[in-house]
């Protein structure tokens, strides 16, 4: 089973972070890869997303703990601190176009979730 969403260049280096089944549908979790905090999410259909965990509005590393849902069809996570929504697909803040968080390639291989930070 491969749930990779974005075409990723073959040269990426992937880091396995957890079993796919360890992720709750519509909830995030945080992983530490090369000293970076990455928030990973599994949506209702089973697709995976990876964003930077740092909430640019509060300066706290908390995005993985937000509520996951949709805004006009776009999958999003709402920061648990002050509720700004971020697109899971683009990292763009849906409440303030000036703000965005980084996104990272993510995939499932052999039942393991892998992310790439390079």
């Amino acid at each position, binding site marked *: 089973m491969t749930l990779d969403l974005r075409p990723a260049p073959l040269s990426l280096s992937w880091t*396995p972070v957890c079993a796919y089944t*360890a992720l*709750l*549908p519509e909830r995030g979790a945080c992983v530490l890869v090369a000293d970076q*905090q990455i928030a990973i999410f599994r*949506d209702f259909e089973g697709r995976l997303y990876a964003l930077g965990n*740092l909430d640019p509005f509060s300066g706290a590393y908390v995005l993985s703990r937000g*509520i*996951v849902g949709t805004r006009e069809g776009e999958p999003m996570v*709402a920061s648990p601190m002050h509720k700004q929504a971020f697109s899971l697909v683009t990292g763009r803040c849906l409440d303030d176009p000036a703000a965005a968080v980084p996104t990272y390639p993510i995939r499932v291989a052999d039942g393991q979730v892998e992310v790439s930070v390079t």
Partner: protein
Amino acid sequence: MTRVVVVGYGPTAHRFVETLRGKGFEGSITVLGEEPRPAYDRVALTSYLDGKSLADLTYPEPGDVTVRLSARVAGIDRQARVVTTEDGHSEPYDVLVLATGSSPFVPPVPGHDLPGCFVYRTIDDLDAIRLAAQDATSGIVIGGGLLGLEAADALRGLGLATHVVEMGPWLMPRQIDEGGGVVLRNHVEALGLTVHTKAGVDAIEAGPDGSVARLVKPGGEAVEAQIVVFSAGIRPRDELARQAGLAVGERGGILVDEGMRTDDPAIYAVGECALAGGMVYGLAGPCFTQAEVAVDRILGGTAAFTGADLSTKLKLLGVDVASFGTLDGALDVTFMDPVGGVYKKLFVSDDARTLLGGICVGDAGPYTSLRPLVGRELPASPTELLFAGTGGVNVDLPDDAQVCSCNNVTKGQICEAIAEHSLTDVPGIKACTRAGATCGSCVPLLKQILVSSGVEVSKAMCEHFPHTRAELFDIVRVRGITTFSQLIAEHGTGRGCDVCKPTVASILASLMGGHVLEGERAALQDTNDHFLANIQKNGTYSVVPRVPGGEITPEKLIVIGEVARDFGLYTKITGGQRIDLFGARVEQLPLIWRRLVDAGFESGHAYGKALRTVKSCVGSTWCRYGVQDAVGLAIALELRYRGLRSPHKLKSAVSGCARECAEARSKDFGIIATEQGWNLYVAGNGGFTPRHADLLAGDLPTDELIRVIDRFLMFYVRTADRLQRTSVWLENLDGGLDYLREVVIEDSLGICGDLEAQMDRHVAGYFDEWRATIEDPDKLSRFVSFVNAPGTPDPSISFATERDQIKPVLIPLEVVRS
């Protein structure tokens, strides 16, 4: 520069200065008021006894006006154009406005000035009555008019056996006819008041302590009471004007012309002290119009006061009494339902085409819908109009019909404001036009106008559900829905958001019980509920163990201290009478709670929209004033309602006596001990918009108190909007406190059994969320900072030291954004 000086600072004076400034007057304005406080809403005076605070009643301060309080004006020197106050201050004027109002008339019966005799006009009067009522068991109101009945209801509310003594042949003889009087009397007696009509007063007699003990009627019959309130009419306060040689009416009142000017061109008189067109107007609406006319004249305009609507409406614990227009006419049509306690009468012209006036008791429908049509052609036959039932028929009002009589606002003005400012609700109309801002009786009509102007007030919770929380609650309850996925698939769109998900989680918790982190429900929770702790600004969490009633043993205090020390947490005593431990990382939460649970602590639900604390005062066990065991009750209530998920957080407090050290009246439900039991207050709030709680029921024994609270809470849980505290919920509840009382005390909807059963299920199903979590490895597995490195603490979290404890070190936002 023109100097305007106003004598008296009541509602009329306030309206006057506010309008004068609002119209751009640039001279100086000085107000000299006799009362020790700024102008307040006298129309709403009685609400001061059942919950409103002085601050609630006080009008907003007008800008750029010099106000002197406790400044009674003792004389006017018209030659020198100076007024002098009792304490010797003099104030020169170019224009003087007298707004001295009126004072209650006290008939000179023997004993009228004994201690225990009161009038009902000012905040000071009410404070004095409230104090005296503490040692009294019964009270008498002399005068069965509009204000007399209001005062009688207030005495009843203070727990007194209450009598009303009326000279006339029936109650409210000036407003309603005999048939209406009979129906009204039945209503009033059903509330437990004793009515004496055609009854004079021979004397008020003192007891051995020198204060009021009884009232003696002409036949010699005596009524025992410790409090007598005179409400036998008002007298305009024209004494200053008389002294100054201004013309006054034969029966009192400062004589004014159409422009509200006295016979001295530099002096105006407005409000209840003025005699305009041969009338002294005792209602706020006409007084306000007079103030506006005077402003216009002072600014050089030609406005005129030519009489006003004397419609009145009174609500005495659910009994509507209203009269409007002229109370006689060539023809009248009466509808009477003695069983239902409804009496309605319309007066029409002899061709039965023009509406002249009406009287209604027990159903104010005609008042609301027909009052604006006085003097116009009837929209339907009088019988049809009378048989239309509560609410009356829906009539199309012409644009120039006056909708709000207190503030003289027409339907046209309201529609204009709705269109111009895109208004969607009643508060908006109030702010733009003042309609509805005084007595409130036109509010139903305002709602009707909003709807008929095609305003679609969106009730949708968010883009995923077109429903309100109350509607979703019913859908979930009636359809037996158990998951968010089912609900959104069948009734919503998309996959939800941070608004609807926690709301549905709360509904499911209220209806199904169970663990908030069970299955799919875990994903619906805000981070606080998800980690059963409160997130802090640096991403750490706080821990608040429950301390029911604020009572805690030394052993438990020591455990809290040890846990805080061992985990390096910041500790603080909260405003909710318990202890908060701050700075825990997610992976520490289960370890901390293991220690706390072992020592007998449980979740305090500081993170949930749920019951927070029931604060207590020390009560009768220790306090020399206490009359009941406040701590015992607070603990019982906290244990009963702990864990109850609700639309917003719920707070409570119990005070052991009326000194109210637990601040119960700032709580969603607050209890104050009485000699006989407990008074239950509801819908109080601290926070952003503080509100004093209203008395829902008095002197309840403990078991009955708990039943009423059960019903109140469950009714709130079922019907409130998302994040709506009980205060806002009650303010928005159609019918307000009276309706709430009907539902939860008189069981008018027949749902009390259901509400109680639902609460009983909650109580029986309660378990400690934290204990259940630490005993479940699956739930515990989520308490890690990093799923791929469970042992690693979040490296972004660090602390500094302040006053010997930790404090978070934050990442500067400039660094975050760059």
